[in-house]
């Protein structure tokens, strides 16, 4: 039996029926990692020994009957989520040797659920990037075409799931970093509502935009992971106090009468024809399943989101990354005096994209520019948020492409930041508004995966799951596997 492409649901049944042990499942996953890693490079660290210990503990739990839906199931975790005793690098030279003294809340929760962590996923440095080319270590490759990018910044977590190196993974999403790579790799990715999942232990990039979420093969699995990781956390004062529903209850494959809107601004200039066709077909499928679709929705402020984002995110990043001074942890360079040492530490420890964003954020916040850039962007943020609020009075969900293109070639955009930033044009308005977004595999263009993005109002993850699940029940795109 081929174990590495199991869904959480399938693995759970095999484990419950004692047809497979967690140790067997984990060994099979580690073998798959050995067989594919030299091609895809999805992991910064593979934690084979720890994984087998966790699998043994999970098997004891399974034998005692004290289990959860995630007990004994192998997961990959993005390398900006702190894991006690296991290096957490953010794919940066700055944190290459950093070993956290504590677990992130999501890691605590998955540990309590009996997870088996097979390793830490590669990413763009400090989650800044859309292609994984900004990892300070190596570039993760797209398993559908190894000459192409997997998307980013959660490229490792998307590839890990896409080629069977993990059953599911956790990523983080600040402007599309879960959804865009999920779309590029043909897997499911959820950016939950801001505040739905605790950010405690997630290395901060942009605190008002960052959110942790799952990458999985099926929508059903994303609901199972959300059941385990969502909820209020006293250690994250921005986490929401709303009760967490049982997300699996929303997995009813019935969307009859649901009102869906298609905002035309997301079918941007420069969008590839194959992507457009795939998304139009996917929306037509939702219509066929009984949803009513308004194809003529307009969200005019969409065109302002990119600029607002690239002011707000770097400004927050500039403040968050001020902590890397070479004193308490992380890379440290020597210098003539304390200030010279600090400047050299930051100059040598950060890669080019991180430096660009710190410079950009410092500029936007500096005296004389604060009102023109930062404050202006925060006001435009209000307009974007209001526009979504109004749309959700008329529609249960909005449907868009996840990205205007299929995965691009490695090297194609890396020296042109503005082109790279445009990769996130369909995903970053969602972080600005704080609403949830789900990317679901919705076909192929030129043999490469296309993602459909489903958007809902704050805390309407259940609506997104219901639509995504109904779509996956009626289609088989998510069952296709890369030839690797």
């Amino acid at each position: 039996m081929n174990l590495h492409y199991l869904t959480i649901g399938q693995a759970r049944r095999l484990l419950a029926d004692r047809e497979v042990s967690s140790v067997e499942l984990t060994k099979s996953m580690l073998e798959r990692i050995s067989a594919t890693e030299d091609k895809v490079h999805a992991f910064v660290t593979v934690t084979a020994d720890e994984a087998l210990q966790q699998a043994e503990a999970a098997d004891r739990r399974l034998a005692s009957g004290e289990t959860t839906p995630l007990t004994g199931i192998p997961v990959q975790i993005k390398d900006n989520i702190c894991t006690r005793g296991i290096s957490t690098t953010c794919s940066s030279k700055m944190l290459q040797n950093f070993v956290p003294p504590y677990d992130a809340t999501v890691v605590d929760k998955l540990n309590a659920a009996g997870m088996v962590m097979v390793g830490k996923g590669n990413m763009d440095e400090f989650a800044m990037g859309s292609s994984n080319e900004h990892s300070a270590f190596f570039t993760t490759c797209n398993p559908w075409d190894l000459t192409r990018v997997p998307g980013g910044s959660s490229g490792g977590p998307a590839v890990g799931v896409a080629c069977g190196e993990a059953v599911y993974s956790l990523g983080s999403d600040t402007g599309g970093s879960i959804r865009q790579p999920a779309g590029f790799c043909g897997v499911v990715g959820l950016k939950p509502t801001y505040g739905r999942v605790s950010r405690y232990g997630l290395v901060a990039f942009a605190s008002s935009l960052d959110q942790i979420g799952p990458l999985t093969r099926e929508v059903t699995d994303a609901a199972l992971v959300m059941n385990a990781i969502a909820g209020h956390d006293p250690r994250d004062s921005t986490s929401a106090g709303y009760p967490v529903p049982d997300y699996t209850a929303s997995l009813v494959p019935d969307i009859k009468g649901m009102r869906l809107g298609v905002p035309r601004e997301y079918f941007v200039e420069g969008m590839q024809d194959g992507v457009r066709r795939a998304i139009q077909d996917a929306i037509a499928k939702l219509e066929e399943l009984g949803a009513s679709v308004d194809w003529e929705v307009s969200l005019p402020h969409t065109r302002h989101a990119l600029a607002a984002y690239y002011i707000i995110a770097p400004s927050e990043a500039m403040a968050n990354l001020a902590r890397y001074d070479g004193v308490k942890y992380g890379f440290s360079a020597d210098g003539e005096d304390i200030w010279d040492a600090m400047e050299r530490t930051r100059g040598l420890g950060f890669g080019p994209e991180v430096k660009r964003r710190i410079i950009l954020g410092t500029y936007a916040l500096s005296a004389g520019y604060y009102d023109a850039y930062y404050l202006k962007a925060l006001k435009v943020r209000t307009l974007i948020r209001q526009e979504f609020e109004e749309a959700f009075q008329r529609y249960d969900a909005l449907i868009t492409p996840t990205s205007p293109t299929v995965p691009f070639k490695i090297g194609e955009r890396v020296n042109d930041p503005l082109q790279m930033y445009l990769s996130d044009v369909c995903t970053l308005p969602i972080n600005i508004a704080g609403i949830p977004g789900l990317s679901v595999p919705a076909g192929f263009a030129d043999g490469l995966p296309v993602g459909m993005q489903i958007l809902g109002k704050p805390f309407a993850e259940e609506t997104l799951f219901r639509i995504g699940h109904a779509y996956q029940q009626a289609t088989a795109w998510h069952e296709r596997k890369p030839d690797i």
Partner: protein
Amino acid sequence: MKLSREQVMTIAALCRMKLSEEEVERFRDQLSAVLESFEVLQECDTENVPPTAYPIPLRNVTREDRAAPSFSQSDILANAPRQEDGSFRVKAVLEGEGN
């Protein structure tokens, strides 16, 4: 308008980040293009629009202050590049006190 060399150097000094000559030139070009793309925001009428700092409404969040175990000194120092006698070791901060 292209950023001047001096502007990039001033910003780099503000965020305490040493840049090479080559980086300064590269960032001048790249960041000028990015800043130019921000012009689109001028289309938006934001008169009387309040800023949004956080996407969900938050008031001051408070909690009860309770004593609880913290990290041990050795845990916290374990990642320190330089340490001495249970402290982080840094170079002298004030001039003339370099001992």
